Each structure stands twice: as structure tokens, then as C-alpha cells.
């Protein structure tokens, strides 16, 4: 489902296309309509922000977009595959192969070291531990955390933990990354750095990155800002994001994340 827009960093192809997506929870008097016919496109090579007040359906939309919830109605195409028609088991596989997750509370396994956490998605895929660890070290190198590879999450700062989570999300080289409030547990400066990193990740390899956020300070990083209200997307604003480093330069990634160390 190709589309065009003016952002020079986008490769102008649609990664995710939502059409008439509704999601309801409960029934009868307890029925809650979290999404009420959402139409939205998310583009490759862009960082898209989903913003809006609490309870407006941002996280629900993120959940259906990445395939961890089925919508009640409507269709969602992700990289050309209509995920709403996939069986539960196929959807699990689709998620594993195509989607990277970054969570508000990081959700790192506290018993594992940073590098072990990063390699978990590969282990889930059945990659031997030795190979998975090798790749995990490379990913930590990318987010400039190689020197903290053997530290448990409890010994890492919030920013470092979020970078570990980003390295974990990237290790299977997903084409879509979904981030739920990735900066809300971080201070402003660290959040800023994390957003820069996510932006660079979207440019690198032309990934589609979707970020749900409340934080107006990070709006400047988005190529596209979708505003939600009461389960609907009420506006999509394209913008020229804050000038950042040139794309696909790992050394620049390292420099930017060094601030959070």
C-alpha cells in the first residue's frame, strides 16, 4: 500500500495500514469502546508518535498494530500481511520476526545480565546460546553499552536499561518497532537521548518506529504525530523533525547514547 509524503528520511512506503479499526472490551453495560474506527498509516523510515490524553486508546492502538491484541473490527496490514486474519499461533511467529518492543518499564529479566537480556529474542527463535550472545554483544556495542554487558539490570541506570531494551528489540532486526512511553520513566535529558536513538534507528535500515507518548518534549523527534481522542485518530500532523545526525552512522549513535551512560 504505497503512499507518499514530504519527509526526506522516509522511503515513502507504508509499513502499517489501519482501516476502520475498532476494539471493544467487555460487553453489555460494561462494554468499553477503546478504538472507534481508526484509520492510520505508518511509514517505513519514519518515527511516528501517537499522542493524546490518558484513556484515549493510544496503547490499545499500539497493541493491535503490533499484533498482541486482535481488533474487534477493521483491518490492519503490516508489511502487506493482514495480521487480523492470522491465527493466534501464526501471529506469535509474525511478531517475533517483524516487531521489536520497547516498554515503559523496560521489562528486562532481572535475573539476567544486560547481554543475556538482549539475546532472549534469539533464544526464543531457537538460536544457539553462543551465537545469540555473540550477536547480543554486537547490539550492545551499537547502543554503546558493551562495557556494561555483564551488569544486571539493577546495576544499570534507567537510560542504560532502556538502551538494553532497545538493543533487545533490535536483535532480530525487526522492520517495525513499537515503543510504549519509552521516556516516561526517564529524566528529561535521558529521555531526549533515547528519542534521538530511536529516531536514528528509524532512519537506519528504514524501520518504522511507533512511539506512544504523553511527553510534549519529545514531539520534536516525530516525523508524523497522530493525535487521538476518545478512540479515534483526530489528526495527523507531518513535520520536519528536529535536525539530527545523518542517517546510518553507527558512530553517531554511540556518541548520542554516551550521554546516558
Amino acid at each position, binding site marked *: 500500500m504505497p503512499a507518499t509524503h514530504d519527509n526526506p528520511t522516509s522511503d515513502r512506503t507504508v509499513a502499517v495500514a489501519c482501516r476502520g479499526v475498532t476494539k471493544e472490551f467487555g460487553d453489555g453495560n460494561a462494554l468499553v469502546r477503546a478504538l472507534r474506527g481508526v484509520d492510520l498509516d505508518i511509514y517505513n523510515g519514519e518515527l511516528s508518535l501517537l499522542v493524546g490524553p490518558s484513556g484515549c486508546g493510544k*496503547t490499545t492502538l499500539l497493541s493491535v498494530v503490533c499484533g498482541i491484541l486482535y481488533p474487534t473490527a477493521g483491518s490492519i496490514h503490516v508489511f502487506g500481511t493482514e495480521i487480523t486474519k492470522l491465527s493466534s499461533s501464526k501471529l*506469535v*511467529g509474525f511478531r517475533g520476526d517483524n516487531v521489536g518492543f520497547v516498554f515503559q518499564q523496560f521489562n528486562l529479566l532481572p535475573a539476567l545480565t544486560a547481554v543475556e537480556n538482549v539475546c532472549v529474542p534469539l533464544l*526464543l527463535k531457537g538460536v544457539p546460546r553462543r551465537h545469540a550472545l555473540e550477536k547480543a554483544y554486537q547490539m550492545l556495542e551499537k547502543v554503546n553499552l558493551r562495557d556494561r554487558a555483564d551488569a544486571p539490570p539493577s546495576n544499570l541506570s534507567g537510560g542504560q536499561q532502556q538502551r538494553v531494551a532497545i538493543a533487545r528489540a533490535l536483535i532480530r532486526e525487526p522492520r517495525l518497532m513499537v515503543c510504549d512511553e519509552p521516556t516516561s520513566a526517564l529524566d528529561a535529558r535521558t529521555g531526549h537521548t533515547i528519542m534521538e536513538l530511536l529516531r536514528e534507528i528509524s532512519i537506519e535500515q528504514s524501520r518504522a518506529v511507533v512511539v506512544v507518548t504523553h511527553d510534549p518534549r519529545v514531539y520534536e523527534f516525530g516525523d508524523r504525530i497522530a493525535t487521538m481522542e476518545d478512540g479515534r485518530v483526530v489528526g495527523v500532523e507531518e513535520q520536519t523533525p528536529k535536525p539530527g545526525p545523518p542517517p546510518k552512522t553507527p558512530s553517531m549513535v554511540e556518541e548520542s547514547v554516551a550521554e546516558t551512560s
Partner: protein
Amino acid sequence: MNWVAWKMLTGNRGKYLAIIMGVTFGAFLIAQQASVFCGLMMLTTSQIKDIEGAEIWAMDKNMQYVDDIKPMSDNELWRVRGVEGVDWAVRLYKGITRARLEEGTFQQIIMIGLDDATMVGAPREIIVGSIDDLRRPDAVIMDEAGFRQLWPDEPFSAGKVFEMNDRRAVVVGVCKSRKTFMTFPIIYTRYSQAVSFVPMERKVLSFILANPKPDVSAEEVCRRIEAQTDLQAQTRAQFEWTTIWYYFRKTGIPFNFFTTVLLGFIVGAAICGQTFYMFTLENLKQFGALKAMGARNLQLVRMIMLQALTVGFIGFGLGIGSVAMLFGEFIMRRTDKLAFFMPWQVVAITGGSILVMVIFSALFSVWKVLRLEPAVVFKG
């Protein structure tokens, strides 16, 4: 992912140790109580074991266990000797009588009367004296535990005198014997003398001990004895099991032990289950994250089961090991009062119980994780 499961399990040391402690406690209690029960059951057969030399025990057909003596006529001995396949058959007296000690106190005593000519069934380990001393008038050989019970501070020696049925008995020797269920002293004497140590009765023959001829099995001879006489006949092993089953069926001992074993199981399962469930709840978001990242339910179930089986295996090993060391080695070597016997069946039953316990505990966690929506990871 097995490695991740192991790291998750051992990462929280406190909970890991608490789960193992719960399983260990359960295994300890189950194995200890089951072993004491087996020890007690073994005590019920100790006299059958101690009376060696004969493969076949023939007795009144209504007898239910070794202490359920129903005296027979001496003629029965000749009937048994007449059965084809019987190599030899001898008399055995067994009964409980009352002894009057020199200082005037009374004591219940188990008396074994051995065939005068052959002494079949005589004790094998004599500490003081010899079996031949039983041929002397009024002679009895007493077991060492009995001697200690009657004369606690005196060294083992011959010459002690007491009375039974107003007849003088002289201890001419001391022997080793297994502990009995009733813990009375045991004396061995000749059959002809034993019947004079008890009030006169018309029938006094307790058992007939027999051996089959070399070309016939003991089981076959037992069948022939039962077919040709009005007696029941059992091999030594059969008689031991008959006795054990009697106590099993007719006394409250198994039930009482079972309640304690069940208690051990319940308490162990409660500690293990609750801690394991809490452990899973604590990691619920992580499990949700794994699900979101593409973990299949089967992978997560395998992880939880591996964790459960790991703590089960460790707890079982610690529980069984500590019971064996503490009771089987440490206490048993220091006292003869403990009835303790741990056959492989106890180990297997404990293992099976622990397996059920940990799987039962894990099922709650599995249920929780299977029902877990991966969307939980997006709930801040």
C-alpha cells in the same frame, strides 16, 4: 530457553531457597514417616526372620499373623511329616508368658521353644554361652535387649535366675536378635521345657517348621500341606507379608502414619505452591514481555515445568538425603529405639509425591501464564 528458565529461577535467591525448603520439608516428612512406618512393619516380622533354618511355616488355618497363636495338637506334626515333598518337619513353641524375677517383679516375656533334637530356629549370634547350653536343665538363652531391660546395669553373663509358671529358669546365654514389635524380652529354650514354663494346656504346638525336599519348591510343598492337612502353610517370605498385611489392614497404624505423610505433602505443597506462584506473579510482566516478543505458550510452559522439576529434584535429594543421614546413619547408630527402614519403595513414593507436588504447584503458574495477555506489558 531452558537456560533463561534456570537463570530466572536462581536469580531470586530468597524465593529459590524458599521453594526448595518447602519441597525439602515435604520430602523429609514423607520419607521419614514412611521409613518409620516401614521400620515398624519390619518389627512385626522380626521373629520370623530370627527363626532361621526352615523355609516353611505350617500353622492353624485361622492364624492371621505371627503373634496370633492358635495352638495345634502334636499330631499335626506327624501329618505334615507325612506330606510328600516334606524333607523334615519339627515343632516350634511361641508364646508370651510371665516371668517373676528374683526381686519379685514381673515381666512379660516372649518364649520360643525349639525342637529338642534339632534346635531348628535357634539364634545364630550368641554373645554369652552356646546353643548346646540349652540342653542343660531349666536353661534359657535371652536376647541382649531383654537382658539389658531386666538387668540394666549389669554386664552380660550366665547364671541369672527367674521363675515362670513357678518353675525355675536359668539364663545360660545371651544372644543377638532383632527388635520386636512388642519390645518384650525374648527367651529361647527347648520345646519340652517351654511347655512346662506355661500353664498346662491340651494343645501347645504353635508352629511346625519344615523344609521341602531338594527337588520340590517350598510353594508346592505348602500347597500339598494345605491340601492334605487342615493347616495353612506358607513360605517364610509369604508369612512375613501375611503378618505385615495383617497390621496394615487391622490396625490404625498405616492410617495414622498416612495422615502425617499427607500433612507433609500438604504443607510442602502449600509452601512450594504459594512461593512458586508468587515467584511467577513477580515475573508476570517478564513472561508477558516474552510472549509479546514471540514466545509460544509451549515454550513458557516448558520453562515453568523445568523450574518446577529443578526445585523438585533438588528438594527431593535434600529431603531424602537428610532423612537417610539423620535417621538412617546418625540416630540409628546411637540408639536401638528407632524403628527406621527405608527401602527403595519409600524413595520412589517420596519421589512420586514430590513430582505430584511440584507439578501441582506449577500448574497454578502455568494457568496464570497461559491466560496472560501479552498486552499486559503495555500497562505501566
